[in-house]
């Protein structure tokens, strides 16, 4: 390529860039640029909500956990444009209107007066968001503690700093929480000392264990797998170590597990397969 051709090429590029800078979309008002950023940030937020949630949440082993999982994704998606708007304005402001050391700060802008359109959009969007979130949350919450006939009842005892579980009618007591899939589990929760938080994480339920009285929560395991039982209330020196292994197994495996822990075959089968 000759030197003349190179010069022409450089001029063409310079004209194009100059056109973008002065006449193209980047020369529009700040609101347009911020809008571009909002769209980009929102897209990132939605992508993160959809693809990262599974990686940071416990596995889904019950219908309640599925509900919690979906709720978190949905709420995050709803929150994404709001967060994106805040971050976009902040980022653009810092980049465009920031001033260095020694520079005079720009004068304050004119006071904002009422703007019916802006106010209406603001209030309308906020109301819609809040109502949607409220309805969704109430619906998800109402799915918990939906009693079924013949649930499997498990007595849960918290104490500093261990969990123990009793399976009524079988004589079995364990530091491991084993539950059958396909049956509703009714946890009867209490504490021997201070307040603890019973949280079998993959079952999607959580309730306080209070000394002196009992609290109740139900879960509907619908898949087999392992999970952790944690304490969700700061309860003292070894709170961080207050966890137990949990497992969702088939009813037959559950019955066998009960027998291996001292239950009679009759009581284990009645409990595991017929409910208590």
């Amino acid at each position, binding site marked *: 390529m000759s030197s003349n051709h190179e010069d022409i090429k450089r001029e063409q590029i310079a004209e194009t860039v100059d056109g973008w800078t002065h006449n193209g979309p980047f020369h529009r008002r700040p609101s347009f640029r911020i809008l571009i950023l909002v769209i980009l940030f929102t897209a990132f937020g939605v992508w993160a909500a959809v693809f990262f949630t599974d990686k940071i949440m416990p596995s889904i082993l019950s219908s309640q956990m599925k509900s919690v999982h979906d709720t978190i994704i949905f709420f995050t998606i709803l929150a994404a444009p709001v967060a994106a708007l805040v971050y976009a304005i902040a980022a653009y402001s810092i980049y465009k209107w920031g001033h260095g050391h020694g520079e005079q700060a720009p004068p304050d802008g004119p006071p904002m007066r009422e703007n019916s359109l802006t106010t209406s959009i603001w209030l309308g969007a906020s109301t819609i968001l809040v109502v949607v979130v409220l309805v969704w949350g109430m619906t998800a919450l109402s799915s918990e503690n939906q009693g079924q006939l013949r649930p499997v009842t498990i007595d849960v005892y918290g*104490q500093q700093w*261990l969990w123990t579980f009793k399976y009524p009618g079988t004589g079995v007591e364990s*530091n*491991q929480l084993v539950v059958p899939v396909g049956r509703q589990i009714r946890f009867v929760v209490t504490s*021997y000392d*201070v307040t603890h938080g019973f949280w079998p994480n993959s079952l999607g339920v959580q309730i306080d264990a209070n000394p002196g009285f009992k609290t109740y929560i139900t879960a509907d395991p619908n898949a087999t797998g*392992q999970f*952790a039982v944690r304490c969700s209330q700061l309860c003292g*020196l070894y709170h961080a170590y207050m966890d137990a*292994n949990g497992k969702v197994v088939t009813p037959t495996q559950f019955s066998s597990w009960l027998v291996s822990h001292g239950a009679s075959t009759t009581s284990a089968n009645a409990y595991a397969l017929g409910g208590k």
Partner: protein
Amino acid sequence: MKRLIWGVISLVIAVVAVGLVVFGFSKQQYHAPDGTVAAKSVGMIQYQGKTRDHVVLTFGTYASAQGKYGTMLSVDGAPNVPSGEVHPGGNPQWPAYSPSNQFSVPAGAYVTVVWHQYDSGGAVNNPYFARAHGTVGGTETVNGKTVTGVDGNNMAHTFTVRPAPGTASGFFLSVPSPVSKLGDNATNTAGGQVVTFSFIAGAKGLYAWNCEFPCGLGIGGFGAVMSSYGYMSGYLHVV
């Protein structure tokens, strides 16, 4: 330049502040009197068709954290730890494990524990912890007699071990001990009960242990000594 100087000064102040906080917490941290007590090897043993290291771990529980221990004998009756202070500088009103709260055993080893129990006790709030869990055969011995647990209304302490959260090893060990033969008049040097039990050490890692008998003050008996690191709690290092 002025901004740089102030930035450096701010950084120094922040580092000093964080350092003071760390120093303060480190002063609060309990340091085991005798460091980590490693289990002693006594040879090999066959268990469930597998040859394993056989190690012996010896410790005691005492009525007063400040004072000398009673004689601690090894599993074969020979003196193990001839003398020493239970918990140098410890609260004399509080019981304590000794000679340390840090123990180490080899991974997968057949561990025999010799526990010299000199403290008083009472009723446990959860009978589950009056029974042995996770030991070989589901039993322990008290003064040579094999049992599956102790009287939950007259027990002193438990040695309860669990892995760090998030590990799915399923390891769990909990063994109770009976009260001193002197009951409420327990001393560090007389009326001792000897508890032995064996367990198979889990995979390598850090395990926490604590006593599940409410031997402290306050709500549920888990205040004071039970909520102070080092007396009734510690770590089992599986190496």
